[in-house]
């Protein structure tokens, strides 16, 4: 992106001055190198988001922002329902509530290293991953609706996981206001065989070593100790979320055309929060969030089974579960006034600071854990939300590295088998049903997650707590 398109407000904060139909400015958190590497389309999409009715304060781009559809990925925007504010299916994305959770194994690298190969065999066998994989559970109609209302809480009630897990999931493991009657039969049918599956693309389950502690106090509060082993799971709401996204993008696009609303980009199609279509999407999207939470909970349960068979006594307590693609109703202070806002985070993580009332008691004193996934073979990070983040970005931070190269380019640049060999040479075991999939997810196809995380830390969006390095990666 050409820097001359932006005003520089500080070392790490850039502003798109309102122009044309923009109601608020666009704000980007980045340094010069990240701005230079960012696509011009991030500027255009952020400016477009700033034109939407009822947007409050600014449209924000996180340090890992890149070209999305409608909203940029790494975009944050809050809307006031009382000022005609909107909700947008494109502002949430297809993979509703795609996110990451991290489990603490309670074992050190010296104990796990000799078992790495057997651990990878067990996880590759037991965790359904990749295109064409099906889950071990098939839900009937009543169970499907109960899952969509209850999320991870439903899963725990069914025996998948522990009651204590729920205190470490956003919204206690179940998004309120989910309405399964707003989810189409087609969406439910897509999910019947997909509950408890990892998916494909950039989704993964990774066994990781705590390689560096940046903030000893926060790390201790989160249960992270140097050279101990954790397991991170990255996946979302599977076919159900994708179908909800597909159907509501269409109905919002057509409703906008029929209402004569001229949008700069059809993917920005949205509906007033206080409209029938808006309410319908909210109910369906929240059901999608619950589907993702239930999915990660079931995968957690399967993971615990596999790991404890090999390593009896491994604790596998849940550190936290974060969602990336959501719209959440939250209270925020804007211009000295407390407002009820609908905050879209698309490829962005909620990052509330210490003492925030929405945080579960287990982490409230420290702040929200922010789990930032790397790409296959590279580091991941644990950060913590800051008090300053509230004013900077409605309490939001980055979610990952972001692609630097298209899938197409990646397959022309790398061979999957060669990558698996190279990573094995560095002690990282990759398991995947597809070598082309591995090539598309090559570490070099992604931006450096370290620079994204450093920027989030330097700009005050979130603070670095620990760096995690991969031992085993089960790719979808």
């Amino acid at each position, binding site marked *: 992106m050409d820097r001359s398109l932006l005003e520089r407000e500080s070392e790490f904060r850039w502003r798109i001055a309102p122009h044309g139909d923009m109601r608020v400015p666009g704000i980007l958190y980045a340094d010069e190198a990240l701005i230079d590497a960012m*696509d011009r*389309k991030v500027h255009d999409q952020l400016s477009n988001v700033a034109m939407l009715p009822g947007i409050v304060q600014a449209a924000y781009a996180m340090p890992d922002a*890149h*070209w*999305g*559809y*409608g909203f940029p*990925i790494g975009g944050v925007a809050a809307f006031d329902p009382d000022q005609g504010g909107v909700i947008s299916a*494109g502002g949430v*994305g*297809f*993979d509703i509530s795609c996110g990451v959770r991290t489990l603490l194994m309670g074992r050190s690298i010296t104990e796990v290293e000799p078992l790495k190969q057997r651990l990878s065999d067990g996880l590759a066998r037991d965790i359904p991953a*990749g*295109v*064409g*994989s*099906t889950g071990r559970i098939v839900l009937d109609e009543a169970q499907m609706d109960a899952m969509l209302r209850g999320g991870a809480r439903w899963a725990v009630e069914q025996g998948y996981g522990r009651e204590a897990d729920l205190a470490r999931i956003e919204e206690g493991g179940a998004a309120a206001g989910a309405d399964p009657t707003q989810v189409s039969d*087609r969406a439910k*049918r*897509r999910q*019947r*065989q*997909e509950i408890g599956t990892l*998916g*494909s*693309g950039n989704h993964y389950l990774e066994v990781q070593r705590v390689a560096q502690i940046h903030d000893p106090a926060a790390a201790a509060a989160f249960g992270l100790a140097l050279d101990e082993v954790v397991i991170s799971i990255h996946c979302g709401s599977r*076919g159900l979320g*994708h*179908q909800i*996204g*597909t159907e509501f*993008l*269409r109905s919002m*696009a*057509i409703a906008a*055309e029929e209402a004569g609303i001229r949008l700069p*980009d*059809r*993917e920005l*199609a949205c509906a007033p929060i206080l409209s029938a279509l808006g309410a319908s999407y909210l109910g369906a999207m929240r059901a999608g969030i619950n589907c993702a939470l239930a999915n990660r909970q079931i995968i957690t349960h399967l993971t615990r089974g596999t790991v404890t068979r090999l390593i009896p006594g491994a604790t596998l307590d849940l550190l936290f579960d974060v969602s990336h693609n959501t719209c959440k109703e939250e209270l925020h202070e804007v211009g000295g006034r407390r407002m009820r806002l609908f905050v879209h985070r698309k490829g962005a993580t909620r990052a509330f600071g210490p003492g925030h009332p929405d945080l579960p008691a287990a982490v409230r004193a420290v702040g929200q854990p922010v789990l930032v996934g790397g790409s296959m073979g590279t580091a991941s990070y644990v950060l913590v939300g800051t008090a300053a983040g509230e004013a900077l970005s409605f309490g939001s931070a980055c979610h990952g590295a*972001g*692609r630097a190269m*298209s*899938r*197409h*380019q990646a*397959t022309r640049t790398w061979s999957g088998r060669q990558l698996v060999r190279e990573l094995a040479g560095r002690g990282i075991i990759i398991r995947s*049903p*597809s*070598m*082309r*999939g591995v090539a*598309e997810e090559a570490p070099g196809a992604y931006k450096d997650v370290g620079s994204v995380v450093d920027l989030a830390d330097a700009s005050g969006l979130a603070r670095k707590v620990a760096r995690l390095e991969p031992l085993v990666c089960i790719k*979808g």
Partner: protein
Amino acid sequence: MEGWRHFSHDADMGVQAEAGTREEVFEQMALGMTALVTNPALIEPREDVAVVCEAPSLELLLVDWLNALVYEMSVRTMLFSRFRVKLGAHSLSGVAGGEKVDRARHEPAVEVKGATYTALEFRQRRDGRWEARCVVDV
């Protein structure tokens, strides 16, 4: 260019196609989308699945067609490689021929989440030929 090809999009993938008729463009776009998942030549068209869509414009019809195929791939765990399309005034009836996913043989790289309205175009060129493009979320 005859047929389909992929174009780059930061996080996802673009599919574009060109052909002599609108119907062929629909068929080529479906083939291009399949090629995101696996090599279409590896898919045997053993079973036909019928798909019907209705939409007010060719562009919306294209997104609906691709999303209907994403749906059929997902619920039937199938991949398709042979497509036949008939167009009505604002409707499409198509047949997709394919087979069950065979993970060893197809090595599917990625699952298509849905076709989007990004970079969406469906138009007739000056030389009378038709072309279309759209970004697919993977």
